[in-house]
């Protein structure tokens, strides 16, 4: 089978959010970059599916030149080749991202045959748009399911499990299909160094799509203010226990 994983390069934000002077982007000068956590699971799942069923896995991203790092990371754990839709440094909205991905997928499928399964992250860590998978599915005319934490492929269909209140919902989509996955789907493996070295020589085909007018146009970013008030220190060490229990009692949790 052929499986495609779509990923996004995002900064590894650890502490405070620091913005660029124009407040239109994060200041990433001192930050590392990574694949969005949900998409790491998508990549891992693609590798596992090909290990189990045979075939080809491909990774696709739309992002700046440096996003080739994330493509190499995906190939380091076993993806066969990569497609890079190279952009400038500005963010693309979900609509234009999905359109560019759809074009690239159509082109690749015309050359190498259809993808049985396209895996995406449920939402990107940074923009959190919750829609690229759905738009892509619509553009390609394939069924799409989101919020998935369990995947099994058999008999020309993909069985997907979703965690909901009170249990797990099961979807069964005929292939070809798209699945937007959540972290927890699997435990991504740690890349081996031979894998990383091999990834350096795996093929990356690059092209530069044009950025359409943004219909969800970012004006500026704002770092939300924390709570104005200071935390009330109930004490230091085990001696604070009575104060904590008094607080719990105030919330009606003791009696």
């Amino acid at each position, binding site marked *: 089978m052929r499986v495609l994983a779509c990923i996004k390069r995002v900064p*590894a*934000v*650890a*502490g*405070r959010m*620091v913005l660029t002077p124009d407040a239109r982007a994060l200041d990433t*000068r*001192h*930050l*590392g*970059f*990574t694949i969005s956590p949900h998409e790491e699971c998508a990549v891992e799942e693609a590798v596992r599916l090909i290990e189990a069923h045979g075939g080809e896995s491909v990774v696709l991203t739309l992002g700046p030149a440096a996003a080739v790092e994330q493509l190499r990371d995906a190939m380091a754990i076993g993806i066969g080749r990569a497609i890079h839709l190279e952009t400038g440094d500005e963010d693309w909205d979900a609509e234009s991202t999905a359109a560019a991905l759809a074009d690239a997928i159509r082109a690749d499928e015309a050359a190498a045959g259809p993808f049985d399964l396209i895996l995406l992250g449920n939402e990107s860590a940074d923009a959190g748009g919750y829609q690229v998978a759905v738009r892509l599915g619509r553009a390609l005319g394939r069924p799409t399911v989101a919020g998935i934490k369990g995947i099994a492929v058999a008999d020309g269909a993909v069985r997907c499990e979703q965690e909901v209140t009170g249990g797990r919902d099961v979807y069964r989509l005929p292939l070809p299909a798209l699945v937007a996955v959540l972290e927890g789907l699997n435990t991504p*493996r*740690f*890349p*081996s*160094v*031979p894998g*990383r*070295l*091999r990834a350096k020589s795996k093929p990356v085909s690059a092209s530069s799509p044009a950025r359409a007018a943004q219909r969800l146009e970012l004006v500026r970013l704002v770092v939300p203010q924390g709570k104005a008030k200071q935390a009330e220190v109930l004490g230091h060490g085990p001696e604070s226990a009575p104060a904590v229990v008094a607080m719990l009692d105030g919330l009606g949790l003791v009696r």
Partner: protein
Amino acid sequence: MSAETVVGVVAFGLVLYVLVGLFALRATYLLRLVLNGRASDRTGDLGRRSVREVVGVLFQSKLFLRPIPGVMHLLLFWGFLVLLPTIAMSFLGAMNAHWSIPWLSEQGWFALMVDLFAIGVLVGVGIAFTIRLGLRPRRFVGSYLQVAYNILLFEASITITLLLWHASQIALGINEYPAEWAPVSNAIASLMSAGPALEVFERVIVWVHALLILAFLVYIPYTKHLHTFVVWFNVFFERTRARGRLEPLVFDDPAVPEDEIRFGMGTIKDMTWKQMVDGMTCTECGRCQDACPAFATGKSLNPKLVVMGLRDQLYREGHALLAAAEGGAAFAGSPLVPNAVSDESVWDCVTCGACVQECPVGIEHVDHIVDLRRNLVMVESRFPAPGSAMLRDLERTANPWGNSPTDRVDWTAGLDVRVLQPGDPPPEYLFWVGCAPAFDERARVGAISTAKLLTEAGVDFAILGARESCTGDPARRLGDEYTYQALAGQNVATLTEARVTKIVTTCPHCFNTIGSEYPDFGGRYEVIHHTQLLAELVRDGRLAPAVGGESITYHDSCYLARHNDVLAEPRELVAAVGRPVEMARSQKRTFCCGAGGAHMWLEERESQINEERAREAAATGATTLAVACPFCTVMLDDGMQATGGGLAVRDVATLLVEAVERGRSAGRELPVLAGGPGGAQAERPSQHR
């Protein structure tokens, strides 16, 4: 030539041919293995190597760290050196009763030495048996005990047959030296009476003696006694640079094809020749095990069994390896972990180097363990999950806790610390803060104190702030050489770009990595530990501490003391601020805090190393436990809290800050000392600007 002689020569010649041939077969196999080992550069430093050969092998310096076994081994070692000519004498004697080595066999002094050293060997064997069977020290657990007994029995019987042979010669009057020079043999001879029976006995005993020697020769290369042949090489080729430095792996050499790249040690095929010789040299004495903090706290790691396990697997699979090397079927060795060494053992190691420090025969256990880790991490991706969290954080945020790089300057709040911006003129000293002081609330106290003292003494220093990255030490010690080299490359580029020449750091791990390892990656700086710089400032009078009455015990950090020989300066500082008292294990024989080898990020199994050390510190009766390492600070503070030891765990710099303040207030009271640190500084032309 008499018929008897012809028979003797032919018979012994045949025996010699067969038994020496058997020995040579085994020796050739071992030699071919070593020649097939992976490269390890041990050239250079001929002077140091020669000195070590004399001190370490001939005079057995390390064995005398334990006096009784030391004497025992010296008796056996020198006994056999002296008795070596008697082997040739016995071979000649076996062929013809009147043959021997000309001249030497006539020397009374030699006969005396033979007698004395023979007795020495027997005493040595006696002591060895007493230790092994009577005292039964724990260090022999897991060693091949029966083999050791066999060796001792060989040694004893060879010596006894030698004495009996000499005695029978004296009794028969066929000795060439004056009999009175050989008091022991002579005394035994007095119990014998010459006659045909004794003539037969003399023939039999010299043959028994010679056959025992030859049988022992065949036996030796299958046993730990092989060390007598290879220790000379192993000690000579021991590492000569700082102990803390690990051998780099090469990933991006275009001359090395991809399948030839060495990712540590997965099968015996990956062992370097030195690692092979290490195994062949191991005497299973267990000194490493006795010193190992992991073993001492009930963990599965036993450095002796690591070396033995690797050696045994090498011997088992070596024939297949050689066959493959000579064009046979591809070598399919079984993995060293868990066959030779268990997974747990590999991860228990804190890389403190106590085993290497103790080893009398030049074995480098830490290199073996790190190489096993390298394969597990970089090839198998099989390692404790908390380690992978740490490595991911290192890759993404350039610190092992996943904190934001911009928060690296938070600890300087309220201090006068310059953050070096790109293009700024370099400071005299770059203060390399390290991740623990930057992000851990307890570890940062030492860095804050150091910054205060440097400011007080007027030292021109600056920090890199968000541009500083982890040195890569935890990644490297965990076995991820790849991530380590990425971080090392990044840091060397930053430091070079900033035109840094001198670096001071409070962290012995950063100190070791930048000072002892970065030169391998093109980073050459003068790196000093904060205790060294502060001691210099005190010596120069730029800091004027007033000694207090507190009794202080100083804990040597492994990476400072054992791995990099910084012993004196921290003690100078402790003596300048209080009353020093030493722990039982100190200086180069210090006991780890438990954080080394990336253990700050791994779960510790069984009992806790830091608690063991905290109890040892408490046993000194001191009120303060002085440390010179941010990791030791955290680990020993935890250990102290857990054991209720009650000692305050403080960085030496923090104690110095208090002493300097004491000095200043004393200065106010006593005008004679006025001037204090500031005055002294003003009068003295500074070397630091």
